[in-house]
């Protein structure tokens, strides 16, 4: 129903181990637009926490490359946000 579409946008889970990793995340947030799902903003990121970030389709390859180079543990939780938006309406009634 929402007019804004999320095709190809991804939700990453990052697991920063140390302050270097935290710095990478904060630097990334300064360079590109990142929607923080958990915690609510880059300032709240700490080592040994789980960080869920929503990244636009156009920036996802850059983010993937940077994460690969950083050695930070990470995974893709949602590969296509638009598909997840649509799948939330999965009740039998609909």
């Amino acid at each position: 129903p929402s007019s804004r579409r999320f095709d190809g946008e991804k939700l990453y889970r990052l697991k920063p181990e140390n302050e270097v990793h935290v710095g990478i995340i904060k630097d990334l947030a300064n360079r590109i637009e990142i929607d923080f799902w958990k915690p609510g903003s880059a300032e709240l990121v700490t080592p040994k926490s789980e960080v869920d970030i929503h990244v636009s389709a156009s920036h996802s390859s850059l983010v993937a490359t940077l994460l690969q180079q950083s050695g930070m543990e990470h995974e893709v939780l949602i590969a296509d946000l638009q598909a997840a938006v649509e799948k939330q309406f999965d009740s039998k009634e609909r």
Partner: protein
Amino acid sequence: STMTYNYEKYNTWQNIEAWMSSITAENPTLVSRSVIGTTYEGRKMHLLKLGRRSSSTKPAIFMDCGIHAREWISPAFCQWFVKEAVSTYGSDATMTSLLNNMDVYVLPVFNIDGYDYTWKRNRMWRKTRSRASSSCYGTDPNRNFDAGWCTTGASSNPCSDTYCGSKPESEVEVKAVADFIRQNRSIIKAYITIHSYSQLLLFPYSYTTALVENHSELLEVARQAAKALTSLYGTKYTSGPGATTIYPAAGGSDDWAYDLGVKYSYTFELRDTGRYGFLLPESQIRPTCQETMLAVKYIASYVQNNP
């Protein structure tokens, strides 16, 4: 009629508003409705009061849902709670005792403008829709309460998702809720706010790592409530003070309510732990609400028995 209302779907604000009207009309002895304010975009903030009518003033619990616009499972739970209250009153001993002896104020959607915006424009919107003195819209209502306002974990940048606003209670929605709780401070014994996601049951403080005076009691009640929740489907919850259990965040509603004197103040972060995040499928509304009911009823029962 609420007979055809579907609690296992996500409902638009328009549907929720009509549902509030219907459920009040259909349950006049148990449900009443008032307007506590108007949103930035002019929508009425309806508050439901659940409880058997009494000639004397009863102690009360205040519960809100939907502070953050994109957390759709939260308003779904408030609707579920009201449905359960009216349908199990008279048959469920805990609910009957609760509504005979206390009133429960339910604000089904706190951030109504934001919620409506997530349906019509941007599913991932989080804040209110007020216009800051910049090109950016919105304030995080859960950073706008007067509890360590705009210090740790909140942003003074209007474009940030955690923008604290121009001053405490700058958001009309926050002020409306704060005014209502202040005006009814003497009767409100517990404050419960429903968020998503992460499966947490939190209590003050979030704006400092200091422990509250009744920390041990709040922790034990939280653990027992979480245990009740887990008993249904095995969903694991973590309990503790916000600042040390997740992260420091100033300006939160639970901290504010606690400092006002509401000594039982809890924040739920409902399902899940990240598989779906804010996009929890509708098929999970029922189990999520069923298990959450057990925890909320445990807390309510504890408060009722420990005035």
